[in-house]
């Protein structure tokens, strides 16, 4: 039985939240370890991962970790920053621009130092959250992104037709 995965197609969400969720799923597909077959399910309300009756995940950080089989670094400063400072911004409306910029700069200066392969799940999560908030600043810092990330970004773009 294959693992079913569904993208975040929930309407009315903050754009950064959908982008980071879907980027994590496309990254998971790019970086998947070869343990099981993964099928994208278009019917399911996402974001979600289902593995038989045993497992249902609705959190894309956990989905990425599960697919990569990488649970390291959950107690690191980088991971704490990626979740409690960056990802927590996705839930809120009307965050002052300067605050977002300051958080993104801190991420780029202190944590997202390199994108050299092999990339850990923690680093991919930091990347996705930082990119979702300010793609242009991430692009500026890394003129060349690893191929798997470029492919994930392209796959992600196809998911969100411009309205």
């Amino acid at each position, binding site marked *: 039985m294959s693992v079913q995965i569904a993208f975040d197609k929930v309407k009315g969400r903050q754009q950064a939240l959908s982008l980071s969720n879907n980027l994590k799923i496309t990254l998971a597909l790019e970086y998947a370890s070869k343990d099981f077959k993964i099928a994208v399910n278009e019917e399911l309300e996402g974001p979600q991962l289902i*593995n038989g009756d*045993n*497992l249902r*995940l*609705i*959190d894309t*950080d*956990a*989905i990425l*970790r*599960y697919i990569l*089989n990488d*649970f390291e670094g*959950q107690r690191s400063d980088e*991971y*704490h920053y990626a*979740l*409690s400072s960056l*990802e*927590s911004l996705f*839930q809120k409306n009307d965050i002052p621009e300067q605050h977002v910029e300051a958080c993104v700069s801190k991420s780029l200066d202190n944590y997202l130092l390199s994108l050299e392969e092999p990339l850990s799940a923690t680093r991919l999560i930091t990347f996705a959250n930082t990119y979702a908030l300010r793609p242009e600043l991430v692009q500026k810092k890394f003129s060349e992104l690893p191929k798997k990330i470029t492919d994930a970004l392209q796959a992600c773009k196809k998911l969100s037709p411009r309205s």
Partner: protein
Amino acid sequence: MSELLEKFKPLSVDQPASLSREQEAVAAQWKSIVLKGNLANDLDELNLRLRDNAFILASTQPTDTDVEVFEVALPLIKELTFSTKDIKATYGKYRHILRWIDYLQRLLSLPESEQLKINYDLELPH
């Protein structure tokens, strides 16, 4: 480490020797939800998880994950039960979380003033 986790560690609760890949993923999910400050939005999912499992990681004893989530869930559920006009509906909706809170707050010997007072006599809808 949080105060409750420090209280939990010395209790002689058997921890699973190692976690399966699925348990690791579920632990990562709830850690992520707590760190993002998003548990209030995912209480339904927590209730569902606890409907089918005694503890979050489907273990036979509570783990660190239960304690870390409990710490944030307790004030949220307290707030919901204080502020509701329809206590039966709130109990009905979160009945599995309430069962789990009831167990953990006693296990962790929370002072009575901090515990959620649970009314065991309410007749809940099926």
